[in-house]
């Protein structure tokens, strides 16, 4: 029974493994080098129809058109940067998977560092506060003192 259950679990886990290399079939009759360059560029551009996919991965019709457009521009001798600018001019910075550093994106870029600094400050503060906790060092009354001496002495004697 247990074996069956773990077998089932394994099957489920395998089924859930995403297909990582689900790339589009290359357009037939195109130069493979150019094709590769196009896919490389397309893989850093976001498809606006299905927003969590790149233009390289997406099956949306717009992504297909844009792949053709990139290829056409490459054949015209346009550089990768020029093609990227072309896309940004039409679809905005959102099309880039790596957003540029701008006034509107400063918070996005700075947030991880800010959080580390903030978290660090909290830890330091908590640690300091713990150090400053009053240590109990009230004097022992005679009875306690006598008891403590007795215990300490007996311990010493026992050790000898």
């Amino acid at each position, binding site marked *: 029974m247990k074996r069956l259950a773990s077998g089932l679990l394994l099957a489920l886990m395998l089924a859930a493994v995403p297909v990582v290399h689900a790339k589009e079939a290359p357009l037939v009759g195109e130069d493979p080098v150019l094709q590769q360059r196009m896919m490389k560029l397309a893989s850093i551009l976001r498809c606006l129809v299905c*927003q969590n996919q790149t233009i390289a991965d997406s099956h949306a019709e717009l992504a297909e058109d844009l792949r053709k457009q990139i290829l056409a521009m490459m054949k015209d001798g346009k550089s990768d940067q020029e093609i990227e600018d072309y896309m*940004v001019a039409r679809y*905005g910075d959102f099309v880039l998977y790596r957003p540029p550093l701008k006034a509107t994106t400063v918070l996005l870029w700075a947030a991880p560092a800010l959080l580390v600094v903030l978290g660090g400050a909290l830890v330091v503060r908590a640690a300091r506060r713990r150090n400053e906790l009053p240590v109990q060092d009230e004097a022992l009354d005679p009875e306690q003192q006598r008891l403590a001496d007795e215990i300490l002495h007996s311990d010493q004697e026992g050790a000898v």
Partner: protein
Amino acid sequence: MTRFWPLGVFLVLVVFLYVGLYLDPHEVPSPLIGKPAPAFALTKVDDPAQTVAREQMLGRVWVLNVWASWCVSCREEHPLLVEFARHVPVEIYGLDYKDQRPEALSWLAQFGNPYKAALFDGDGKVGIDFGVYGVPESFVIDKKGVIRYKQIGPFTEDALMNKLLPLLQKLQAES
């Protein structure tokens, strides 16, 4: 007092999540707003011999409505546009995006035609220049040929009356 700060953090989080509920990630602000409309010269859907170009529209306020016969939410929007064009003196041009002429024509015959002219963009090239990524989309273009507003997704009655209408009046008043 310091014991309340987790509550403070929680409240900030609540505000962020609450605001997030009303943001639509599909509404990507267009970088074209405030920029001249891309140049185009397209044939009419009903007459491949006649072209309409961007330059012809200068000096007029007009709306470019991107639609297609295969577009489902266009059916929702279309009757509103037909009604709007009937009552408001506005020039609406259709951009028939990635479509076939016969399908587009029979679609217009069936659902009505609010357009001064329907322009044919069969391969979607002009659509790409306008940064179209989901049909329907609409652009409002002023007298100088500058894009002033973009409606992503279908116009609702509310958007037509409270956004488009005041904007058209404002733009008409500009020289």
